[in-house]
Structure formats: structure tokens, C-alpha cells
């Protein structure tokens, strides 16, 4: 284990920020910490970096307990969301700062700084002060500084948060390769589920002062531990409909019957929430099997897909997503059918994912 957190509790004054967080990250893994703002992601990174200390619990890096170990002795590289460049030093000095601390000889230092800068395409602005750099260059300088000393543990706190959309897109493509080349154990914080899915070997979803679910991107997307996580992953967001499961197992929606996977038998008779991705719903002719009528309310064309908001007869809103360019109704009444094979059932009271017969809930549920 490269990073091992055990029962971390952190309070700020009276506020409980983290409550019993445990996490094991094997060497070389890229773990994405995902969650809404205020969930404690940044606090967790700072605890690992050692700039703040936990009230309870232990942090071990590379098998060594870190209690009482100062941040400068933890051998970590970290990039901050706000870049935190040293304003009075030029980009070269900024990137070189982890190397000067390690007393790297001058020639090696220059070589290494240039190498990292070249990798991140900022070698032409090394002489500039932070205020002379563009946002993208600042972000790359901050990243280069984190990478410069080739740390075995890399903490990246939402490094793409403050850069424009184009750069974010480019970096999202570039980063996985870059991180793989580092051979480091990486914790990557983000609020963007696409970034999380693209970069993470595993994703840890944080909510309510703790970790709600840890799993591979597929596990989190296909079997989210609760409705909250289901809603966070996916754009447009998953449809969540209150249903009662009948024997079959099946559910009734606007007069039509939707037959569920046999594995949902255990949920028969229960009040549930049905989770169905907008991609699993299609516009069909009125006489198609399982078709039921909806009233079209609005259509939003996105780049690669078109999202339609429709209301069922019971006035429940449903999002339907189809690839851009395919024909679909724009207004009036239309009929839709659901592909229920990937549908999820959540307990209505707790929001937790209901177990399916023969299928364990994938990933660890914390």
C-alpha cells in the first residue's frame, strides 16, 4: 500500500469535516477523489500532505506512519487548485523549488526543470514571473512543480478547475499519459465526473464527511451505491422515478408495463426508486411493445447528443438522450420505451441501491 488512511477524523473548531475516513491506495494507482464542494476532498489531501493534522486516525505513506512527520519530509508532489505559485520567483525557480530542497546539483536541476517544462510545453516561458503567465501556463507550471522531483506520491487538487474549457479538454486527454509516465501513486481531486471517469483507475466518491463508495469508473457508473451518487455521474443526470415493484418483476408506468431484470425479484412489493439512464430510453412508435405516451416539454441539443425533457401522464419529468442528428419529436405527444436491462432500483427511504439476486454490488460500499 502506498497510501493508507485509517479512521481519519478532522474537525475545524466544532465542525466535523471528516468522520472516520479509511482508504487504501496501492502503489501506482490513480485514485480520483470525487464529490461536491465542501465534501472534504481538499481537506483529505492536506492531511496526507501534512499541512494539517487529523484529530484522530492515522496516515501511512509507503508503509510508514506519518504522525509528527513534517510536510517537507513526506516526499510528496502536490498541485493546488489555485496554483499557489510563488509570485516573486519566475517559472523556472517555481518548478525548481522541490529540487533545490533536495540539493540537486545545478546542472542536473536545470536539465530536469527543462525536461518537465518541455513535457508540459512551457519551456518557452521559464523566465516569466507568474503574473506574466496565462492561466493555462500557470496551471502547467504548478503541475510541473509537482512533478519536478519525481515524487512517488502525487496529490492533484482539481488542477483543471480554474482553466478554460479548451485547455481542460486538452489536459484531460494529456494527463492520463502524463500520470502513467510518472509511475507515481496519484490522488486526483475533481468535481467533474467526466474527468473522474477518464483519469481514475478507481474513484472514491465523497459525501457527508466520508467516503460513500469506492470502485472502478464502470462500477460507480453502473451500480452507484445510492441515488445521490447515481445523480452525480452522468450528463444528463439519471432519471429517478418513484415506483412500486410488482411481481414479475415489473413496474407500471403510465399504463405501460416495464419488465425488469429477473435479478430484481427481491424487490417485489417494495417502494423503490427506479434509476434509468436517459440513454436507455428511446422514442418509439405508439404500437411498439412497452411504449407509453409522454408530453414533450423541451429539447436541448448538445454537441454529441440531443436531450429531451418530457412529462409522463402522471406529470413526472423524464430526460431522454439520443445521439445528435437522429430524428426525434420536438413537441406534442410522443411515445417512449425503456430498455430496463440496466435499470437500477434504490430503496425509497434510504436511497441505497437494492441488492440484485446473483449480483453482488460491485465495488466497496463504505
Amino acid at each position: 500500500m502506498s497510501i493508507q488512511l485509517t479512521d481519519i477524523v478532522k474537525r475545524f473548531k466544532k465542525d466535523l469535516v471528516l468522520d472516520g475516513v479509511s482508504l487504501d491506495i496501492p502503489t501506482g494507482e490513480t485514485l480520483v477523489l470525487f464529490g461536491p464542494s465542501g465534501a472534504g476532498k481538499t481537506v483529505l489531501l492536506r492531511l496526507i500532505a501534512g499541512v494539517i493534522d487529523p484529530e484522530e486516525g492515522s496516515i501511512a505513506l509507503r508503509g510508514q506512519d506519518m504522525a509528527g512527520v513534517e510536510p517537507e519530509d513526506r516526499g510528496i508532489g502536490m498541485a493546488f487548485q489555485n496554483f499557489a505559485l510563488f509570485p516573486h520567483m519566475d517559472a523556472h525557480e517555481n518548478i525548481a523549488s522541490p529540487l533545490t530542497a533536495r540539493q540537486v546539483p545545478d546542472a542536473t536541476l536545470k536539465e530536469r526543470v527543462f525536461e518537465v517544462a518541455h513535457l508540459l510545453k512551457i519551456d518557452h516561458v521559464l523566465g516569466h514571473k507568474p503574473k506574466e503567465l496565462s492561466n493555462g501556463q500557470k496551471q502547467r507550471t504548478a503541475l510541473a512543480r509537482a512533478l519536478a522531483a519525481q515524487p512517488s506520491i502525487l496529490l492533484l487538487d482539481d488542477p483543471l478547475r480554474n482553466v478554460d474549457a479548451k485547455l481542460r479538454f486538452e489536459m484531460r486527454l494529456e494527463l492520463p499519459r502524463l500520470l502513467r509516465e510518472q509511475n507515481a501513486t496519484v490522488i486526483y481531486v475533481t468535481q467533474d465526473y467526466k474527468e473522474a471517469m477518464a483519469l481514475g483507475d478507481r474513484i472514491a466518491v465523497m459525501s457527508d464527511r466520508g467516503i460513500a463508495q469506492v470502485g472502478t469508473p464502470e462500477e460507480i457508473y453502473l451500480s452507484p451505491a445510492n441515488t445521490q451518487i447515481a445523480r452525480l455521474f452522468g450528463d444528463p443526470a439519471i432519471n429517478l422515478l418513484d415506483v412500486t415493484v410488482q411481481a414479475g418483476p415489473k413496474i407500471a408506468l403510465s399504463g405501460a408495463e416495464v419488465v425488469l431484470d429477473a435479478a430484481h425479484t427481491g424487490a417485489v412489493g417494495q417502494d423503490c426508486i427506479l434509476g434509468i439512464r436517459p440513454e436507455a430510453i428511446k422514442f418509439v412508435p405508439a404500437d411498439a411493445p412497452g411504449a407509453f405516451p409522454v408530453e414533450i416539454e423541451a429539447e436541448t441539443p448538445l454537441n454529441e447528443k440531443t436531450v429531451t425533457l418530457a412529462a409522463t401522464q402522471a406529470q413526472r419529468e423524464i430526460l431522454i438522450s439520443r445521439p445528435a442528428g437522429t430524428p426525434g419529436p420536438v413537441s406534442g405527444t410522443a411515445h417512449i420505451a425503456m430498455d430496463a436491462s440496466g435499470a437500477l432500483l434504490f430503496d425509497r427511504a434510504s436511497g441505497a441501491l437494492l441488492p440484485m439476486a446473483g449480483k453482488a454490488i460491485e465495488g466497496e460500499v463504505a
Partner: protein
Amino acid sequence: MDTQSTLEKVLRGIAITAVILFFMFPIFWIFLMSFQTNETILRVPPSIVFEPTLTNYKALITGRLESTAGALEIEFMSNLFNSAYLSTMAVIVGLILGVPAAYAFGRLKFRGSEDIAFTLLSFRFAPPLLVLLPLTIYFQQIGLANTYFGLIWVYQLIVLPLILWIVRGYFEDIPADIEYAYRIAGHGFWATFRKIALPLAMPGIAAAGLLAFIFAWNNFIFALVLASADKQPVTVGALAFVTASGIQYGQIAAGIVLSILPTLALALYAQRYLVEGLSLGAVKG
């Protein structure tokens, strides 16, 4: 803005001129007075046409004033030296003690830090005389009265709270992440203080140092009570110009001009540190 009308420009010019005249005229007049004899200064009506003379400056610098009433010994130059020495040392000691303390108050937030910082500020609440009377007695008993060391110590009452509170604000304004980043990069606490916190707070330290110097330089009451002739700064020494044979306006004016010069020079020098931005472009958001 180019949309300003000519009238607006003219009015603005007049307003600025008026303000400058109001504040600069006394200094200008004193500057003129310093080149005049008592007779030309006191003539009615006053005029800015006169024959300039350097006798005032000569008298101050040589330490002897020859007048019709006879020769008068003036200690002005040693007073000037005392002022410079006392103020400089007070500010240096104040910075050495105050800057690390300001960092501790601003960053480390230890138990009771707010209370201690406030207590230090409260030194400025009491009228100086209230502090001075008991202090004089103590100083006489322990042999600190009329010593540079004792005066510099007492000057800390003026200098230290000022430096502490100004510099503390600047330390607090440095985003903590910048310091964290330097620590995580592998540098220790002290290296971070020297290489990150100090340079970034430099405009504040310069401002506080300059203000503290001016306050120390202009101090009158501490030196009046605690120092005798050979340790007196110019503020107290200027009393000597009020002589039995009349008030030496020309010398007072020349003395003022000479004693403004060091603070003016320092202010001009420190200006470039004062205008430097704090952490422009370092942190987003």
C-alpha cells in the same frame, strides 16, 4: 477617460493645485525662512523677495551662532545624530522583534495569540506621560535613564505595536497555500519564512518600518523626560532656539529643513517597496 471636457480638466487642475498649496505652503515658507535672518523674517508685510543667506545653516553646522548679543553654542548636529541613531536603532530592534512576532500572530494562531496582540496594541492607548512617570523612576534605579539603550527600549512602545499590527495583516494576506506549496516542495519552516513569507510581506514591512521611523523621529515626550542634553534628539533640541535674547526663527526653520531631509530621503527610497504589489497573479480566485 478621454471624454473629459476641458472645463473639467481645468477645474480638476485648480482643485489639485489648491490642495497642494494648502499642504505644501508651510513647508515652502519654512524653506524660504531658513535662508533669511530674523529681521527679514519678522518684517511687515512679509515678502518672498529677500537676500538669501546661509548663516542659519552655517550656525547649525558649526555649532556656533554669532549674533549681536554674543556667541551661542548650539548642539544641533549632535541632536540630529541622536535622532538618526535612536530612530534607526529603534526601528531595527522593532523589526527584529516585531516581524517574527507578527508572523506568529498572523499565521500560527496559538492559544491566547489574539489577547497578547491586543495587549501590545493597548500600549498605545495610555497617554505616554502615564507610562513615563513610573518608568523614569525605574530607569533611574536600574541605571537606564539617559542611555541610548534605555531610550531605544522605551521607543519600542511606539514602534513595536505599529510594526506588529501592520506586518501581521500582510502576513495574513499571503495565501496559506503558497507557503504550504513551499513546505511540500521540501523546504523547512524557517526556509519557508525566509524565502516566501518575508519577501511577500516586504511591502508591508517597508511601510511599517517607514511609519515606525517617522513616529520615532517625531517623538518628543519620551526623549524630553528620559534624556539629558547629550542624548537629546532634534525634537527636544529645538527648544534651545528659544533663547533669552529672542526666538531664532531662521535657525528653527533651517533646523526643520535639515531634520525633514532624512525622513524624506527614507520615504523616497522605501517608495518602490511600498508600491510593489503583494502577490499579483500568484493565486487564482
